[in-house]
């Protein structure tokens, strides 16, 4: 039985929804009342750290968890290019509405209008807040904030701090968190991994976590739980994500009743360093901002093995500029990624491998000089040279698409509440704002909007209205969930097989990349589901693990996460199979236009899928949230 989900979007005109909602919401009075409420926040990235710091600042009693040894290392630290905001400082016609419009269009009309509008509205406050906290954004000589542009838009609205924007924004969050830790409102639990969610009377009331150094399994109770645990790109094994990024918290919550939405919407980023060998542990991103000055091309002739500098101008195909004259090299990521695949599939690629194209700066260096180009992208060029041994100042970079960001995630309503009462989901871990494709520089924006501004409001409103009975960690439900967690570990350590975690993960990654990657089709997806099931069996029968559960044991941590990727990978393939259309990052080969562009089916698929777990070995059930666009004209997405 599929049910239709209610997103609880407030009434009234789009531009007033959030303000009105805040006025309508219940509040918790400051002082003792707020202190009495305890909130668990899992994650210390922009979303989690921002939420924990802000809730602490408001006076709530906050427990904040992360896997890393310190909150300052959450994966958000790795974001390079920048963060969007509708400030219109450049006077190039930007506005809240335009940012809203670009984001909805960028997401191929598969995101929720009201959420995206709120995001665009809050974007301006994020910049103000970060500046006030001492985030050293790039500035012009006159002292004003500098901007650049990113893929999929025609205005300059991206704020940046060299190529380290995520690092600087996260350090801002970490500093706010540090202030609250000093004040005693936030208690920090680094090197703690959430392994399961505890539900009492249908409400999220706590978590079970493992202290990663000692292996100790611990119970924590609270009045509400916020998950801000990031995305699941490492399902592909090779991705641009940090090695410790994982899906476990979200997946375990899913198995306890939180619906998982749009799992097949994964973003393949067009500009990563191509894969080099089968020992590789991750792919390195080269920021999208490079496409502001870099021109993408391949040799016109298939199988051309000459070095790039030997290929004359007239034998190069600047295929993005040719196919998309209006946006050129700045088309959105899904389009640029797929276009690279199309060229490489025809045998037109960089000399280095069948899966690489050129990103060339020679024209920009000629026009602007080496110094200016170095000032803009120097650290990325250095990073590239470190990896490949080549200098982009002298020869074009080689790039290829790589799994990067996941638009899918746990289903949430407008209040970021999941289908489990009292369980809120923020940042990349939820599904709501980016639809089928995320434009550049908008994940940082969503992380901070959720963390600094949305979560604190919606959680307060929940707590003010919730009827919560007293629970302790001795409550039966806590014991039962802890037992589940313990037996899961026993099971893993008792397999005593012969295949390493990496070995099995690598195989999963290949299946996902080949069949559930940049392009999918029905046969391939069915094949993937079958193969993943086999791999799940191999995992539970033949996994090799050493060490014990009561010690620091990275292999065990990774094995625990891999078990979840194997299940999530299967759901991603199912979701992709169900979605008989192409949109954004989801490209079904059966559904394309004559010129190879994605062909949506708005009539039948203008909805969010939301999968409900049915128990081990059972097929999940899909529910729908219908999307309606009242403030925007739904069009065929064109960047020509």
């Amino acid at each position: 039985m599929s049910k239709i989900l209610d997103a609880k979007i407030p009434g009234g005109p789009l531009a007033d929804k959030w303000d009105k909602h805040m006025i309508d919401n219940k509040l918790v009075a400051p002082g003792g009342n707020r202190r009495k409420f305890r909130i668990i926040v899992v994650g210390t990235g922009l979303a989690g750290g921002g939420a924990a710091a802000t809730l602490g600042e408001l006076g709530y009693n906050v427990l904040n968890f992360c896997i890393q040894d310190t909150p300052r290392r959450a994966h958000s630290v790795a974001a390079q290019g920048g963060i969007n905001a509708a400030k219109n400082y450049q006077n190039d016609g930007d506005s809240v509405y335009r940012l809203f419009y670009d984001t909805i269009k960028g997401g191929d009309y598969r995101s929720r209008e009201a959420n995206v509008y709120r995001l665009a509205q809050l974007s301006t406050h994020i910049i103000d807040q970060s500046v006030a906290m001492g985030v050293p954004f790039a500035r012009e000589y006159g002292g004003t904030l500098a901007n650049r542009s990113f893929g999929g838009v025609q205005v300059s609205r991206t704020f940046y701090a060299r190529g380290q924007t995520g690092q600087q924004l996260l350090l801002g969050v970490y500093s706010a968190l540090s202030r609250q830790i000093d004040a005693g409102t936030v208690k920090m639990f680094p090197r703690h991994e959430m392994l399961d969610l505890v539900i009492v009377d249908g409400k999220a009331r706590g978590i079970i976590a493992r202290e990663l150094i000692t292996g100790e399994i611990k119970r924590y109770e609270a009045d509400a739980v916020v998950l801000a645990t990031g995305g699941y790109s490492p399902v592909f094994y090779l991705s641009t994500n940090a090695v410790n990024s994982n899906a476990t918290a979200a997946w375990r919550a899913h198995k306890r009743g939180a619906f998982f939405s749009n799992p097949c919407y994964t973003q393949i980023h067009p500009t990563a360093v191509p894969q080099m060998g089968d020992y590789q542990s991750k792919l390195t991103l080269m920021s999208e901002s490079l496409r502001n000055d870099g021109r993408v091309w391949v040799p016109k002739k298939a199988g051309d093995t000459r070095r790039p500098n030997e290929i004359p101008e007239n034998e190069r195909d600047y295929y993005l500029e040719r196919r998309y004259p209006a946006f050129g090299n700045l088309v959105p990521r899904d389009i640029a990624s797929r276009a690279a695949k199309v060229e490489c599939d025809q045998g037109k690629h960089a000399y280095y491998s069948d899966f690489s194209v050129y990103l060339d700066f020679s024209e920009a260096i000629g026009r602007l000089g080496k110094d200016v180009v170095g000032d803009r992208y120097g650290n990325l060029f250095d990073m590239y040279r470190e990896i490949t041994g080549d200098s982009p100042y002298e020869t074009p970079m080689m790039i290829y698409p790589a799994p990067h960001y996941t638009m899918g995630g746990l289903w949430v309503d407008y209040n970021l509440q999941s289908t489990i009462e009292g369980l809120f989901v923020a940042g990349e871990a939820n599904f709501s704002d980016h639809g089928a494709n995320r434009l550049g520089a908008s994940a940082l924006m969503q992380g901070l909007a959720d963390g600094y501004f949305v979560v604190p409001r919606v959680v307060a409103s929940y707590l003010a209205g919730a009827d919560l009975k007293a629970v302790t960690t001795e409550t039966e439900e806590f014991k039962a969930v802890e037992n589940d967690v313990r037996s899961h570990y026993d099971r893993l350590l008792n397999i005593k097989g012969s295949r390493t975690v990496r070995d099995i993960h690598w195989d999963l990654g290949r299946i996902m990349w080949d069949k559930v990657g940049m392009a999918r089709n029905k046969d391939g997806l069915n094949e993937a589901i079958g193969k993943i099931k086999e791999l799940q069996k191999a995992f539970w029968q033949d996994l090799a693990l050493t060490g014990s559960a009561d010690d620091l044991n990275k292999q065990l941590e990774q094995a625990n996460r891999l078990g979840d990727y194997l299940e999530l990978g299967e759901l991603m393939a199912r979701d992709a199979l169900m979605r008989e259309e192409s949109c954004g990052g989801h490209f079904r080969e059966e559904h394309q236009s004559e010129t190879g562009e994605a062909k949506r089916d708005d009539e039948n698929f203008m909805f969010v899928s939301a999968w409900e777990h049915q128990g081990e070995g059972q097929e999940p059930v899909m529910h729908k949230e219908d999307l309606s666009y009242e403030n925007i004209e739904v069009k065929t997405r064109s960047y020509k």
Partner: protein
Amino acid sequence: MTIHLKIWRQARGAKDGKFHDYTVENVAAEMSFLEMLDILNEQLVKKGEEAIEFDNDCREGICGTCGMVVDGVAHGTHAGCTTCEIRMRSYKDGDTITVEPFRASAFPIIKDLVVDRSAFDRIQAKGGYVSTNVGSAPDGNAQLIPKSDADNAMDAATCIGCGACVAACPNGSASLFVSAKISQFSWLPQGDAERTRRALRMVEQMDSEGFGDCSNHGECEAVCPKEISIQNIARMRREFVKAAFKG
């Protein structure tokens, strides 16, 4: 190529450890140093031996998680680069590499190459921030900041908190790390009101964590993967002296 390794192994909670010898075959030039260790760990697990623990995460040189002493140098002998950024092309077939954890009394060893750097968080909590509540900020352009000041603040803010500076310093001082944070704010108008309190409290906490004093060896600057300048330490001293004077 074939690489020989001498790696420090220490059980959790043990007072001491020792070097073990390992060999990794078929190391490719493009491999990163940590990928080479991954391959070694694969071999160990297949043989039923416990994998070597080392902290790592982004593997792009930005998160500051990884860090080990490679051939006597924190983050290895390749300047301006974290351990995860080292590529095996900087080694030759048959080389022997020594790998040990960051050693400093304020960074206790947890297991193998993993150390506890939480002292940095406690220092940060004493004032490495601007006390401004969310939602009350003025427009971002309300206060103009000259590009050169913003650039200087950014230079200091680039610190990744890896702790190499501490491991490299003969005194085990955390001065480069602490000074980078204090300097960042000293270049900005934001947080000026707390300048005195920040300098006093952060320096006090640094001392009480058991880090040594700085006696201008400059080793920290030499190993810093982000090439943070030792000039920051001079700035920190000025900030501290001014603060102490004010009271």
